[in-house]
């Protein structure tokens, strides 16, 4: 697969790469000179424009870094299916940049409102039911066929829970992996946010238990992020506006011990720090990954997603 070739050109294997989310205010610095990161993740929709300066910017980024395409609008769990034009735009973009990874979320976005087609503009939560699993399976299959490659599906932070769910999130995702062959993108911050918002147990304990229920070899990427603290009894919003939280670093260690080295991304979307501060977060992730690898005494490239491809 082309994604592996691209990753290897930097002397890294995909499973030990560390990257950052690249957002508009950082373009200039990211393109000036070298940096310590192995890849950048961009939001696919930000590069859908086929004319103007946007394609040239993406070309420049792709010259310097392997790119992971993270889309936020695909709505893989949408019962009405995925908009065909959207998928074609994503396909064109994917063909243009040959990303090392393509990912989106276990959520729905496409629906109808008053008889008109609508896109929610947000990542809306799924019922974890057999019917929604069937919908998700068909959609993921279709996307993987159109794109001609495997995608990663990310667990969501959610602010409502449905009484219609009759399976756990991990049962749902495990079955999705089994049925479609997709990989998983585990957002550790989302696990912590959900645990804070919906669990009576300690968030770390809840999130660790969640991780233990994942299928072996399915995790292709980890997202790390922080959130704005809130008052007691308020729901935490997954705003990606802070440094990776201590809880998230702690859960990252747990995840690496369990999963082995996994491609890792620092996700910071709002209240952006300076570029060097963002890179420092990536450096910290890399040092934790090395430390865990030494403790486990296994080569960083031998485990994780590579075996699953």
């Amino acid at each position, binding site marked *: 697969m082309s994604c592996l070739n691209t990753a290897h050109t930097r002397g890294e294997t995909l499973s030990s790469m560390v990257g950052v989310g690249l957002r508009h205010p950082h373009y200039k610095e990211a393109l000036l000179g070298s940096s310590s990161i192995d890849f950048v993740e961009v939001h696919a*929709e930000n590069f*859908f*424009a*086929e*004319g*103007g*300066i*946007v394609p*040239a910017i993406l070309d420049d980024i792709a010259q310097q870094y392997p790119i992971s395409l993270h889309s936020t*609008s*695909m*709505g893989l769990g*949408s*019962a*009405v299916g995925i*908009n065909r*034009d*959207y998928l074609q*735009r994503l396909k064109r973009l994917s063909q243009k940049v040959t990303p090392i990874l393509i990912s989106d979320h276990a959520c*729905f*976005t*496409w*629906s*109808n*409102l*008053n008889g*008109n*087609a*609508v*896109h*929610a*503009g*947000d990542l*809306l939560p799924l*019922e974890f*039911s057999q*019917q*929604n699993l*069937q*919908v998700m399976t068909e959609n993921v299959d279709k996307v993987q066929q159109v794109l001609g490659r495997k995608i990663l599906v990310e667990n969501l932070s*959610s*602010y*409502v*829970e*449905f009484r*219609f769910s009759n399976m756990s999130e991990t049962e749902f995702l495990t079955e999705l992996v089994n049925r479609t062959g997709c990989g998983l993108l585990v957002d550790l911050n989302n696990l912590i946010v959900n645990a804070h918002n919906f669990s009576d147990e300690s968030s770390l304990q809840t999130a660790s238990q969640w991780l233990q229920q994942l299928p072996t070899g399915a995790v292709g990427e980890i997202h790390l992020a922080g959130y704005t603290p809130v008052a007691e009894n*308020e*729901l935490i*919003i997954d705003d990606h506006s802070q440094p990776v939280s201590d809880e998230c670093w702690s859960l990252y260690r747990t995840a690496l011990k369990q999963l082995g080295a996994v491609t890792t991304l620092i996700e910071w979307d709002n209240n952006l720090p300076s570029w060097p501060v963002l890179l420092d977060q990536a450096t910290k992730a890399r040092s934790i990954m090395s430390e865990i690898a030494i403790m486990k005494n296994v080569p960083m490239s031998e485990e994780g997603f590579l075996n699953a491809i």
Partner: protein
Amino acid sequence: MQSELDILCRRQEALIALIFSEQSMLENKEEDQMSKGLKIYQNNLLMTAVRALSLKYPVIDKMIGREALSGLTRKLLHIELPASGDWADWGEQLSSLIMTTELYDQHPYLAEIASFEWCLHETARGVGTELNVNALARLSEQNLKSVFIQLSKTLKVLSFHYPVDEIWMLHQLDESQIDTNELAVLLKEPIELHRIVMYQREAVPCVERLTEQEQAWLIDVLAGLSLDQLLEKYVTFDLSGWLSVAIEEQWLEGLR
């Protein structure tokens, strides 16, 4: 009888309807978990939509302020549903929405500025085409009835009552540097039409003023008049001078 898929569709629609529902945003006072969660989705939608509009309409944002823009955004979400999965495609109807509000009564220029900014946004994202130099050889053909000028697909011919291009340029300055007297002159009751060509040059949107004749010429070119018809209609028109500008400014795609 509804299938399970239909039932799932209806439930997803119901959540979207709640999120987009203005009534629920204003009147939902219950503080249970579901209501709190719903409010987060409602706020997310509004904030994302406001941000999307502010990126496309930076001058409108500057002139009316974020609070007024939020109010317009809330209304626009009910008139023009986001439907493509890319927020960059949403917001075209802001100008017509402004014309239905009190803002328009007090500040009639806002609708034209919004219209100008949307065109600028579209031009910035449009796909420019390279000039087909070989096609220019058709100019030497004897029968110009079958020769047609092809303009760049990013080119737009526009007319405004207010000098929106100048108002827009003035707002590229920091707020403290904007000359309020100059702005007041630009915003006063319009007396003449301002003719504009908007196009993409070196991948960047550009704007030029046009004379009445230049505008009419471009409109006729876009309408598909042959070169023969154009030269007959515009007897004194300087075709070679115009062609050189059109090539330089990347208005021209070629001749067919």
